């Protein structure tokens, strides 16, 4: 992972982990209070809640930010697929959350990680068909399509999420600009003044030696000024070269 992506991942972790923690608490409460859904539906919410909590703890205690990777993997690879299999069809509003999450995953962890999930979701209709056709889905996993209100609010959530990614991308771009500017400045300065020093210092030394061959008295003000200026020029280029 590049340095830029690590920095943006760090910033994303501060936003994603608390939000996923709050959402998972809210959905768990809704599931417990109103839906009375199957227990496996709630289990993935508890898992996401635990990962989010662990991630927040790890972030502030150990200054690490690995949990977003685990969170996305659990969300895309376990939670969504579990729910889609439970619904028994891929024509579900849950799919709306998949593309933006995959785009974010590719952004944070690279294109191969995204392609892995895309491959998995390509196989999903076949998996669902086989599981439902041969009645391999246990009763505890089965649940019905959510009501209209849930569909709408789930879609709005996914839209807000996709809009939130624009902030991530904008932040990333600004991060690149600042970082590359600094890197560019250091490299350019080094190269430029190394060249300057090499090209200028040799003739300066020769000029100083040549002036010293002059048999005129050392107290001559013109000669001393010229020497002083040549020394200043040499010193300046050596300073730029980082030798002083």
């Amino acid at each position, binding site marked *: 992972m590049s340095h830029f992506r690590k920095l943006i991942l760090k910033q994303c972790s501060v936003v994603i982990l608390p939000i996923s923690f709050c959402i998972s608490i809210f959905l768990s409460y809704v599931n417990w209070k109103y839906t009375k859904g199957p227990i496996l539906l709630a289990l993935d919410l508890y898992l996401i809640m635990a990962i989010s909590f662990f991630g927040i703890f790890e972030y502030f205690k150990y200054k690490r930010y690995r949990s977003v990777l685990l969170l996305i993997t659990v969300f895309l690879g376990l939670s969504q697929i579990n729910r889609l299999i439970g619904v028994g069809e891929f024509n579900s509003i849950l799919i709306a959350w998949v593309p933006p999450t995959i785009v974010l995953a590719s952004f944070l962890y690279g294109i191969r990680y995204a392609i892995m999930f895309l491959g998995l979701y390509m196989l999903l209709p076949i998996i669902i068909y086989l599981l439902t056709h041969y009645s391999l889905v246990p009763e505890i996993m089965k649940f019905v399509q959510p009501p209209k209100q849930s569909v709408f609010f789930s879609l709005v959530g996914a839209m807000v999420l996709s*809009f939130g990614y624009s902030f991530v991308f904008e932040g990333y771009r600004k991060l690149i600009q600042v970082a590359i500017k600094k890197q560019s400045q250091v490299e350019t300065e080094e190269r430029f003044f190394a060249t300057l020093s090499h090209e200028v210092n040799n003739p300066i030394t020769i000029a100083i030696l040549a002036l010293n061959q002059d048999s005129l008295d050392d107290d001559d003000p013109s000669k001393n000024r010229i020497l002083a200026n040549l020394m200043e020029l040499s010193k300046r280029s050596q300073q730029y070269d980082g030798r002083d």
Partner: protein
Amino acid sequence: MERESIQNFRFQSVFGNDLFMSEKYRSIALFYLGLFVGLVNFVIAIDIFLESSDEAYIRLLLFTTSFVACCIASRKRYPQWSVFFLALSVFVPICFYLFHSSFSYISLFSIFPLIGVCSYFILGRPAAVLFSLFLIGLAYYATFGSDLPSSDNIFIETLIYYSLLLLTFGVVFFVNLQIKVYESKYYRKQEAVKLESLSKTHKEQVDSIIREIRCDLTDQYLADFKSRSPKGYEAFIRAFGRIEQALDEIHSLSEREEPLVDQKIYRLWEGDDT
């Protein structure tokens, strides 16, 4: 020319003045998106027409195809209109299918967040907000305002599902490509700008020193120096000439405003002036 730049400015002020996607990649993205939207619409409209024999779908197909053709044809010369036609070729069929409910609207809903992401990359954040609000309004109408029964069409829903995955892959691919291009482009630009700035600052400092030396190198002093130490005089004149030449050459590099000016300096350092 001026009028065109004013129009561009207005367009970019409304639809994001700092595009994430470069003009070149936006043109390529518009081409593939247009082609993709046209193909998907073609398959859906033909399938429903064969099932229901409703001529409205043929008319929709004609409209969508003409929008896509306009989008692809105008993507280089008139990118603003190209985006406009692409938006029409996406939103007109979506509205039509939602109102007619020829298949489950939930499968259409799954595309909406991705449309938001695409509109951000192509047009910028304000456009993404506008389109997202429009899509949310549509979704609200389809969910609560419409009394039309939702029907199922497994073929179209599967087609939309795989189209969604393909589009996601396209977005992922283009974003990664764009980031690499953007980084290298920005790096070169910054390098050249910084070098120019450094060179100017340094030139001012060095010029004042050289000017002082020149003031001291009067004709009388040089004549005396030559008479006292001819070899030293020749060595000094040669060395001073080299100093001036080297400084002029280094400073003149930044004035050419070439993107790879740093490499020229590097070659100079290596002793290869060609």
